């Protein structure tokens, strides 16, 4: 052996430490790039305009740089998705954990996971080519591009996130709590909603926060099916543009680098990043804080 064993051990440990440091560099890279470029953007566009202007038209000749229309588009599609995913995902989790036979659960869970494995561009196609025409039959006059269809499809996509994390949380509740509730004469329904869900609430909250963060950052479904019109509206029938769609739209176009138009993607990206960053940190601390509740 060329190296003494102690030195070799140390060398490997340092090498491995460097590997894990790559993740820190990634975070630093993201934050630095977004902030530095956004600062350049805000040296040309006052931050007050960015936060209060109700129009977003950086690619037009009459330029406005108000993030509100993109933000409303993002929040609108996210809200629709969450309204679908949270009740469905949570009820499915309760059903699988409290009512269904273990065989049924073992059959259903892997199939539900498939929903999360499907590439998002496929959901985009499904929203535009199947869900939107279907909705247009139900709602006459519905725009071919609208917030409703991608919102609904996004909700279906994130059901497995809610179900699997909530189910883990429900399963972690000690049996004794459930038995005690049954012993008091409570039905399964009462036990599920008055004992199990409150006891598993931190895990369920984490699952919801992560689902919101996932929906905020989703790109392809909304880019394909929501249209590309930044509009300050909360009407799900109208076409909207989300922050993510705008970023893709600009990077696919011929916007010259170092132009003000180009810098808008960093300001928009920073806004999106701040939202998801805050949500992820909240979920991380909720999880840490309540991890050992029943251990």
């Amino acid at each position, binding site marked *: 052996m060329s190296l003494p064993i102690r030195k070799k051990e140390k060398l490997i*440990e340092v090498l491995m430490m460097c590997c*894990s440091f790559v993740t820190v560099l990634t975070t630093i890279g993201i934050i630095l790039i977004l902030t530095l470029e956004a600062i350049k953007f805000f040296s040309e566009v006052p931050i007050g305009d960015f936060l209060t202007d109700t129009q977003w038209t950086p690619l037009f000749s009459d330029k406005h740089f108000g993030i509100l229309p993109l933000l409303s588009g993002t929040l609108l599609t996210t809200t629709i998705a969450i309204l679908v995913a949270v009740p469905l995902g949570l*009820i499915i989790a309760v059903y699988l954990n409290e009512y269904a036979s273990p065989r049924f659960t073992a059959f259903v869970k892997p199939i539900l996971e498939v929903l999360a494995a499907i590439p998002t561009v496929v959901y985009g*196609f*499904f929203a535009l*080519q199947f869900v939107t025409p279907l909705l247009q039959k139900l709602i006459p006059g519905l725009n071919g591009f609208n917030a409703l269809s991608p919102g609904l499809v996004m909700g279906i996509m994130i059901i497995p996130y809610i179900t699997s994390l909530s189910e883990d949380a429900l399963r972690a509740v000690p049996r004794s709590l459930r038995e005690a509730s049954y012993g008091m004469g409570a039905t399964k329904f009462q036990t599920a909603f008055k004992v199990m869900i409150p006891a598993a609430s931190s895990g369920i909250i984490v699952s919801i926060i992560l689902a919101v963060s996932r929906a905020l950052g989703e790109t*392809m479904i909304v880019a394909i099916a929501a249209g590309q019109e930044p509009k300050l509206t909360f009407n799900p029938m109208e076409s909207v543009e989300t922050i993510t769609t705008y*970023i893709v739209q600009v990077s696919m176009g011929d916007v010259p680098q170092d132009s003000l138009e180009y810098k808008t993607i960093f300001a928009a990206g920073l806004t999106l990043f701040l939202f998801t960053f805050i949500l992820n940190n909240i979920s991380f601390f909720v999880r840490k804080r309540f991890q050992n509740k029943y251990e």
Partner: protein
Amino acid sequence: MNSKNYSRGKLTDKVFKYTALTFTLFALAILVILLVDIFSKGLARINWDFFRNLPSRHANRSGIMTAMAGMLSLLFFTIIIALPIGILAGVYLQEYGKKSRFASFIEINIANLAGVPSVIYGILGLTLFVRILHMGNSVIAGALTLALLIMPIIIVATREAIKAVPHSLREASYGMGATKWQTTSRVVIPSALGGILTGIILAISRAIGETAPLLVIGALVYVPFIPEGPNDQFTTLPIQIFNWTSRPQADFIINAAAGIIVLLLITFLLNGIAIYIRNKWYKKIKY
């Protein structure tokens, strides 16, 4: 009074049970509808020429050859970059620095990275690899971006797999006089290999489906040639699908559906393999 309450409780219970069952079946039904819709639209379009043809202005002469080739070369570089770093980082965090402040800082950091929208990774790749490092919108720039994106998944999977290795195995190895690295590389990692492999395959499956970050770094939507090296421009199957989906002509929509069938088959195959390995591994090693 008491029995009335009781029966009302039972009724609520029953109503909920069947509502919840309906919801569960509804979610499964959506999956079936999605698959039926896409297969019925695209299956007839799939033939040998579809795999062999270059993209074209004419829908019925377009194929996915360059998209598949671009995807494979992109994956090749993504894997050789992300795997070693991801696995070593995971091993380090679980085996070496478990209790240190550095490790818990990195844990928060990885939890955060896993939640960063993929389009933001695209902005990182665009600025760092494409512009600052002058890689252009090349295969290698795309691979580096995707590598950073899937690294948290590999790290978390590696940690989970290693966590499941019982302590007694390590103790036995130390008892034989093995060093820490000998124990890690010859006892712990081989025992955790099934779990690590499962995580890697799921990470690859994720990388295959990614579209947004590649669009942001400037992957092209029309590439009439096969990338021959890491510095060539490229397109991938999801990008090709996106491009076809956004065209108004019905023939391109059929192409998109056909492309999706291929993409879904690859995704399901990889996920199937991952589940197979996981089950097999759990059966083989029972502690």
